[in-house]
């Protein structure tokens, strides 16, 4: 006999299996939580509360990857082995990058979640994304300096792929527009930022683009503020989840934020629905990703049934109204074009509010078309 059998999808009325692999524990657990809340709200919205597409129930299987790609790959293989044709999730970029090839090898649909790495875009035919990517952040950042020609731009980023990607994007986007881009890099494990703040200050940039994620962000901002960097130049960075706002401290009001999303950034039908559905009633950074993922899943099932190729076709070029507004899945590389925002923080202590300064449409913030790899 065969050493291994793969269960196949059942008949018409059989439930549709959807596997959700994301961080329930580990360092990104709170991103994961927003993602799943958003997903459930989105599913509710897209199925009009029935949880069914036609007469087929969407059967969710959730699994925790604890941020470890090895674990994510294991559960993804397990799900695929059990006949799951749609996998969504991936809170961290590492997980997204390693699950994407699995999807391609096994011809199942993979809808990556909050993972921001550009490398997921165009990873392969079966991989889509429901969130934004680093490039869109950087394009939004460019909108802060108007005419970039002969401006001096410094990127401050942590070592590693996240920093590399941001640096490369800034060089291409803002440098491409005529600015003079240089970079200051620091180890992600750094606890003392004075040397880097001094280097930045010495460079006297017109615009400082900061790409920093992790638990040391608070210390980093404080140091930049104390060394007078925030006062001397325009500083742009991504606005993280709401819980992190107080960690900016006094620096918060001096930074120009580019934002993927925050509560109140949009007022679409989807946003209202999501707000009504998520626990606590306040939307946050990654709720739209989960919401969009659910919308894409429902679309894929509606149009494709059990046929993954059809699902892919149905999604490519699809335009829909998400939490953030008009979204479009670019057919060439599966980038998700979506509105992006400029924001300001105001307030102090633990009570901060964010307000939109400007929004960019999906086309305005579109990343360049990536070569589809597989």
């Amino acid at each position, binding site marked *: 006999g065969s050493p291994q059998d793969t269960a196949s999808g059942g008949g018409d009325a059989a439930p549709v299996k959807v596997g959700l692999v994301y961080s329930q524990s580990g360092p990104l657990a709170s991103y994961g939580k927003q993602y799943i809340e958003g997903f459930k709200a989105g599913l509710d919205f897209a199925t009009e509360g029935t949880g069914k597409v036609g007469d087929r129930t969407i059967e969710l299987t959730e699994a925790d990857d604890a941020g470890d790609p090895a674990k994510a790959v294991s559960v993804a293989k397990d799900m695929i082995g059990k006949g799951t044709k749609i996998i969504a999730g991936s809170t961290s970029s590492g997980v997204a990058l390693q699950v994407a090839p699995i999807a391609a090898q096994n011809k199942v649909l993979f809808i990556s979640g909050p993972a921001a790495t550009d490398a997921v875009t165009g990873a392969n035919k079966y991989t889509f994304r429901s969130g934004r990517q680093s490039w869109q952040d950087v394009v939004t950042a460019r909108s802060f300096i108007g005419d970039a020609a002969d401006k001096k731009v410094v990127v401050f980023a942590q*070592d590693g792929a996240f920093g590399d990607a941001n640096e490369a994007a800034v060089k291409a986007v803002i440098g491409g527009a005529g600015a003079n881009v240089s970079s200051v*890099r620091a180890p992600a494990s750094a*606890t003392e930022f*004075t*040397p880097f703040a001094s280097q930045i200050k010495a460079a006297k940039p017109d615009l400082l683009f900061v790409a920093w994620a992790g638990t040391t962000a608070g210390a980093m901002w404080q140091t930049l503020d104390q060394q007078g960097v925030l006062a001397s130049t325009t500083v742009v960075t991504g606005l993280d989840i709401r819980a992190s706002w107080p960690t900016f401290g006094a620096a918060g009001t001096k930074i120009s934020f580019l934002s993927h999303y925050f509560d109140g950034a949009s007022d679409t039908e989807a946003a209202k629905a999501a707000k009504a559905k998520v626990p606590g009633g306040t939307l946050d950074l990654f709720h739209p990703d989960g919401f969009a993922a659910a919308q894409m899943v429902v679309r894929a099932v509606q149009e494709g049934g059990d046929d993954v190729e059809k699902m892919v076709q149905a999604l490519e070029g699809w335009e829909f109204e998400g939490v953030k507004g008009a979204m479009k899945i670019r057919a060439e590389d599966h980038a998700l074009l979506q509105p992006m925002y400029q924001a300001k923080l105001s307030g102090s202590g*633990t009570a901060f509010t964010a307000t939109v300064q400007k929004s960019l449409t999906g086309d305005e913030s579109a990343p360049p078309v990536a070569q589809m790899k597989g």
Partner: protein
Amino acid sequence: MNTVVLLTLTGLGLAALYFLVASGLSLVFGLADVLNFAHGLFLGVGAYATWWASGNLPGAGPDGFGFVLAVVFGVLAGSFVAVLVELVLIRPLYSRTIEQVLVTVGLSLAGVALLQATWGADPRPFPRPDWSRDVTSVLGAQVPNAGLLLIVAAVVVLGALLAFLRWTRYGLIIRAGVENREMVTALGIDVRKAFTLVFAIGGAAAALAGALGGVYFGTVSPGQGGSLLIFAFIVVVIGGMGSVVGSAYAAVAVGLLQQFVNYYGTSGLGDLCVVGLLAVVLLLRPQGLAGKVAHA
């Protein structure tokens, strides 16, 4: 010029943080021979207890006396957990090095996960006095007050530890015990009590590092202790196990090296240099800079 001053002072701030973590680690290793991988947990407990106290403990708060009270509470909590760990987990395993390593590794995993289960993985803003966010101008350099606070605290702790070792009876017992544990018992002294005490002190110093580290970073998160621990270990080994003064020297060396190399060299080189320093010191002097003597 003012870059050098700035780097020196902030490097010393970093050194102060390392020293606070390392001193307890070093004493515990010197006297009780315990390689304590759970030391980072004490730091986490101190930080979270301080954070908790300033929001919930009557009288405590982010400012003035309330802040002092919160820190005191944090330090006591760290110390209490350390004592508990010593009494319940370590004591039955004295002189079984490998088992101790396992237990403390297990404890560090479980403890950090527990903090995370209780307060979440995300960094939380740390309550702190406003002046700690400001800078002081020293010779033209804008030196963060939190760093200065760390330096002051480390100097106070160093002084207090030395005074404790030098002038108090238990300090005497610890110094004697590092030299010859057996003879201390032969004088009718229960040396295990000194072990417990050393854990209490180590826990308190680590908790203080946690609380002041919280001020310095502005946030508190469950993994904070772990990432400092590896450098603290390096400091302990370079300084010589059991030597408080050795730890102080080593902490300064490591802090300054990291800071200057990070500025003048490329990023990440500072960490590599520190590890290189460790390897060189160990190959040349396996017992560390100061050997194994509790200096007074």
